[in-house]
């Protein structure tokens, strides 16, 4: 059969029964996608905004007519949908119009000394190489510049917007209730939100930032609830949850960058003095050892902030997906009912335990991010208690 012959030249077909690859499956579930799976083969189509040398394409993923596993049946203006992610046919002949895709294949190759997985689309019996979207990481994770850029509303963006809308209505209602019932005991939604607010204000902001804490409360509250909401929505296993947003390093980079910008631009002279040219230390030590370390620390602190959140959430998601994959591994992709039952018996208590732990981690990571942001802002704006003259030997404490 023509398909079998071409399977051997451009790799394994995506639609044929294969062994369950737990690693690939896990990575695909924590990665971003252009369509959200609702149940089985039903996908929630999200808007796509794609840019290539041929211009912009705006639409929704409905044009791809995605079916099994999020693989599109049609190509549209050279773009196809593979595992719910948009890819582009390298061959320029398909850059306009719609073509029916027979199948997709993937194969592991070595290019430039690095192992890669490349995808092909089979149109009318011929294999055509597919490009993934451009990633702006300089190729660290195997990405790089390709023939198109993806600015679509993906799963992560949709989840962020959903969190935004939910929290907007929740907080607006709580704030209206607070102004309406001023002086009385809070009840309802306001009663639920107030402990969080007072916790952030009294345990995180006031002790770490000091008397000027009110200026930074909006940012700390926003960061805390944003991260908390995204973590919790990522734990919901079905639509509209399930998108791994805070486990996406781009999101955490931006959050840490905002903390970095706020703490750096609020820093006063006292902070820069003590970071770059600390008084009371011999100049030799300062130039060669202490100042480089301190400068490195200024950049390293937000870096650990982002890595901490990213790694915690991603690791939790991978572990949960691996536990659930036990069912598929032991059931040999649906061929062995006894194995699948054994897998389910093993995996269900493990997954339940892991998800409970993940709830704790969701709160903890949001709290830790907020507290460390408050600490960095606090050290940047703190005033010296009194003038200490380090150059005299008299101690003025």
């Amino acid at each position, binding site marked *: 059969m023509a398909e079998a012959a071409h399977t051997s030249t451009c790799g394994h077909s995506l639609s044929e029964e294969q062994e369950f690859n737990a690693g690939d499956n896990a990575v695909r579930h924590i990665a971003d996608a252009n369509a959200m799976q609702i149940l089985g083969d039903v996908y929630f189509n999200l808007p796509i905004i794609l840019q290539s040398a041929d211009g912009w394409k705006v639409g929704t993923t409905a044009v791809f007519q995605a079916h099994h596993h999020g693989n599109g049946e049609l190509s549209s203006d050279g773009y196809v949908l593979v595992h719910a992610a948009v890819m582009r046919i390298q061959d320029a002949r398909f850059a306009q119009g719609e073509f029916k895709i027979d199948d997709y294949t993937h194969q592991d190759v070595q290019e430039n000394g690095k192992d890669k997985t490349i995808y092909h689309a089979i149109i009318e019996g011929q294999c055509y190489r597919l490009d993934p979207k451009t990633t702006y990481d300089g190729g660290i994770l195997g990405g790089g510049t390709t023939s198109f850029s993806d600015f679509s509303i993906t799963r992560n963006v949709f989840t962020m917007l959903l969190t935004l809308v939910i929290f907007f209505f929740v907080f607006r209602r709580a704030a209206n209730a607070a102004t309406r019932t001023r002086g009385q005991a809070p009840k309802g939604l306001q009663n639920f939100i107030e402990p969080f607010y007072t916790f952030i204000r009294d345990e995180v902001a006031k002790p770490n930032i000091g008397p000027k804490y009110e200026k930074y409360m909006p940012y700390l509250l926003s960061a805390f609830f944003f991260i908390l909401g995204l973590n919790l929505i990522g734990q919901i296993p079905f639509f509209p949850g399930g998108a791994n947003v805070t486990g996406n390093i781009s999101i955490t980079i931006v959050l840490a960058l905002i903390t970095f910008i706020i703490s750096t631009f609020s820093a006063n002279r006292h902070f820069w003095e003590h970071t770059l040219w600390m008084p009371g230390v011999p100049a030799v030590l300062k130039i060669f050892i202490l100042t480089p370390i301190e400068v490195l620390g200024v950049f390293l602190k937000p870096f650990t902030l982002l890595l901490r959140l990213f*790694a915690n959430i991603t690791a939790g998601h991978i572990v949960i997906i691996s536990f659930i994959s036990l069912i598929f591994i032991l059931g040999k992709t649906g061929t062995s009912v006894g194995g699948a039952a054994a897998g389910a018996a093993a995996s269900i208590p493990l997954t339940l335990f892991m998800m409970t732990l993940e709830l704790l981690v969701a709160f903890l990571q949001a709290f830790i991010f907020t507290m460390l942001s408050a600490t960095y802002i606090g050290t940047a704006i703190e005033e010296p208690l009194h003038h200490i003259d380090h150059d005299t030997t008299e101690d003025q404490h």
Partner: protein
Amino acid sequence: MYAAIGAGLAVIGAGLGIGQIGGKAVEAIARQPEAGGDIRANMILTAALVEGAALVAMVLSFFVAAPK
């Protein structure tokens, strides 16, 4: 494979560190129960910092072993 070994070693470090933090914190609360709240807050903060260091190593090993 070496990436997995590296990640495992990093987690050993995290486990040792956080175990020590937890142990000392519990001892301190046993000595002075009324300081429990302060000690708990400091314990969580320090545990997160130690875990952050271990997670840096874990993320680097993930980069090394990244598929695709």
